[in-house]
């Protein structure tokens, strides 16, 4: 018996506008671009809501109502939820309806979709707590399963998350970590006792998320019956089939005219034709299955790019410079106790900012370029660092900072 576990990431960053060095000291709004460019957060949210969130949620609701055993799970970043409240409350409602069915689980992550675990464990804990409170407020549920930003994972993270009380954690089923092992089982993260690890089956997940509309693909076109067949082949070979993907797959990465919504609509009934398969939420998987082995992941891995490591965010000097600069400000920013300063600082921690500065493979016009709302990674870096400089000035100009310096001098 193999259970299909759907997990959808739902996230939108607050993109930094084309912030110039001349704006420093004059303009403390970093995220309010209102041009036609794709750094306009409001415009992007509306676009994605129209192409993806609203229609996909409609299909999901339909399926949840039609099939009483159909289950899915989501994780919503805090910054995404903020933008929904600000720009599209009706979309928020459509997600709330799904969660209200009781069969759409909500997972935990850092509020700001950040890489804080790598730089400040305390900030990491704070952001996770903030996220829990937000999810409780908007959806009335408390997550018990955790996923870190972009599925960045290693033993230390699992250990920390276990301490925080979570029962399960999800990560990428990367080849370099699994070796001959299969992602279709649960594992025990090394050094932990009470938390279980679920790994993405990247082949089957990417068949839907990336290859679905690729005419060069040998298995094109992917139909619901075909996929259901593949899924059923896991029977006897695994407990779970973890299909983890970005929710934007449905309508935004794979456009409606590829037939992706129809595929989704027919998938449950095709799956059910194989009596050994069902759908499951991550919590149910954790409760139902035991880990088959320990998994040792010493170095960080992620679900990004071919390398499945940290290189999407941290592979060139600019990225390192930017991320170190933002975390250097932690103590001073927090000591201002100024809500806006702190919130802006946190919005600047979102992993996307560093993703936009990535220059590996920039020559080949690859996936990074597609997702990059700036013309070049260099321009992304310049805008980001200028905004950070302005934030720094606001901190230094803040009354509590002056007091702090006085105190330091007295001592």
């Amino acid at each position: 018996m193999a259970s299909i576990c759907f997990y959808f990431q739902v996230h939108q960053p607050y993109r930094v506008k084309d912030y110039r060095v001349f704006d420093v000291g004059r303009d403390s709004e970093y995220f309010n671009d209102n041009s036609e460019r794709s750094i306009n957060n409001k415009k992007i949210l509306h676009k994605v809501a129209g192409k993806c969130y609203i229609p996909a949620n409609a299909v999901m609701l339909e399926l949840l109502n039609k099939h009483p055993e159909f289950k899915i799970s989501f994780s919503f970043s805090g910054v995404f939820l903020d933008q929904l409240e600000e720009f599209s409350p009706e979309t928020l409602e459509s997600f709330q309806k799904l969660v209200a069915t009781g069969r759409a689980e909500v997972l935990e992550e850092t509020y700001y979709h950040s890489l804080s675990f790598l730089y400040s464990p305390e900030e990491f804990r704070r952001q996770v707590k903030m996220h829990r409170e937000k999810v409780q407020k908007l959806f009335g549920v408390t997550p018990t399963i955790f996923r870190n930003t972009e599925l960045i994972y290693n033993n230390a993270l699992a250990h920390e998350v276990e301490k925080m009380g979570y029962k399960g954690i999800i990560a990428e089923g990367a080849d370099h970590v699994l070796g001959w092992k299969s992602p279709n089982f649960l594992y025990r993260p090394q050094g932990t006792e009470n938390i279980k690890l679920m790994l993405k089956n990247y082949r089957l997940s990417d068949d839907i998320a990336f290859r679905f509309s690729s005419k060069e693909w040998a298995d094109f076109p992917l139909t619901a019956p075909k996929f259901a067949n593949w899924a059923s082949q896991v029977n006897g070979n695994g407990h779970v089939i973890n299909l983890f993907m970005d929710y934007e797959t449905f309508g935004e990465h794979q456009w409606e005219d590829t037939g992706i919504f129809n595929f989704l609509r027919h998938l449950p009934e095709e799956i059910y034709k194989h009596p050994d398969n069902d759908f499951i939420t991550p919590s149910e998987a954790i409760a139902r299955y035991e880990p088959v082995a320990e998994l040792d992941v010493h170095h960080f891995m992620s679900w990004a790019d071919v390398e499945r490591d940290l290189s999407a965010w941290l592979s060139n000097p600019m990225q390192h410079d930017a991320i170190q600069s933002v975390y250097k400000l932690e103590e001073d920013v927090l000591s201002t106790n100024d809500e806006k300063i702190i919130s802006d600082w946190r919005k600047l921690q979102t992993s996307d900012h560093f993703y936009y500065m990535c220059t590996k493979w920039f020559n080949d016009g690859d996936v990074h370029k597609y997702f990059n709302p700036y013309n070049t990674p260099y321009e992304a870096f310049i805008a980001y660092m200028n905004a950070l400089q302005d934030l720094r000035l606001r901190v230094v100009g803040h009354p509590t900072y002056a007091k702090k310096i006085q105190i330091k001098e007295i001592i």
Partner: protein
Amino acid sequence: MFGWEFPPHNSGGLGTACFGLTRALANRNIEILFVLPKKVGVSASFMPILFADTRKIKFHEVESNLKPYVTSEGYVRERDKIISDIYGNTLLQEVRRYALRAREIAKKERFDVIHAHDWLSFLAGVEAKKVSDKPLILHMHATEFDRTGGQGVNQEVYDIERMAMERADGIIAVSNFTKQKIVQHYGIPADKIQVVHNGIDECDYENIFDKLSDLKKNGQKIVLFAGRITIQKGPEYFIRAAKRVLEHQPNVLFLVAGSGDMERQMMLEAAHLGISDRVMFIGFLRGDDLNAAYRAADLFVMPSVSEPFGITPLESIIAGAPVLISKQSGVAEVLTHALKVDFWDTEDMANKILGVVSHRSLKETLWGNSREEIRKINWDAASKKCIDYYEKMICACGVPPETRII
């Protein structure tokens, strides 16, 4: 092949390009008969070692007493109303004389294809085609519109360019930018034009010394402009951006390397803006001196109004400085790891300059990636495209491509 200048007796990119291209072609076993209009100047002594082995380039010097050419200004292509009269009497005469000599050469020599560089050689190419009936390929490194920045196009030069392009069998343009200009301003159909981007060969730039390191003490940053100080190269935008940058960050030094008809005007402009102490006009540089300037710079800026290709940014990258280039250039088509601006947008230019001088990591990443990228922008790649084009032309003219001499 008909050229006009060849290193070291060149005052612009045309000579450099001819050198790089002919060497690469020779390396691919193309036998080249390279014709220059004047007697004095280039000889075997200038040939680099790479060249010597492939000794398939013969130099034919055509006798002519070309006064304007002897001085470095002879190749300055800027047009004022006043100067055009002088050129009208002497340069055009020389161009026509070249054409007549070319006729005689073409009658005597054996070749498969005629390849002529820029308008100065076009008439020579046309004459050669007349007597030999071989395919004529014109290589457009710059159009009259580029040279004049669109203002005061010399009618006679334009007529020569147009007539020759109409008569030619094929045209090579150094960029899509230039190709567009040709289609738009000369009415030549796009399918008659092949784009072959210029290149750069790293072996020509070894052993670059840190001569200007003194300038960089006190953490001072250096921003370099290197090119003719003339309308086409956009020096005024450089000066304006400099002003904007210095308002924000005074510890930046702007170097202007080059000479030209706008030099005095630029010095006055810098003085007028109150930045003369931060803008150094260091004169015309070439060779090791120029490379040392690139090496010392934190950023090289090419704010050209209209640049058909632009080899200088590539030289800068090899020597050690990342580049900020005008979008109105051919080189912007092949370089991804460069900062790009519209030449008139001095705010954006200043913002980007400040980004580079303020953040070492930006300079490192930008330079590191462009240095890697430049390996594929070389003359061998260009020569391959030229050879394919020659074969295409030869087939089109109905002659079987057995010999490989041009």
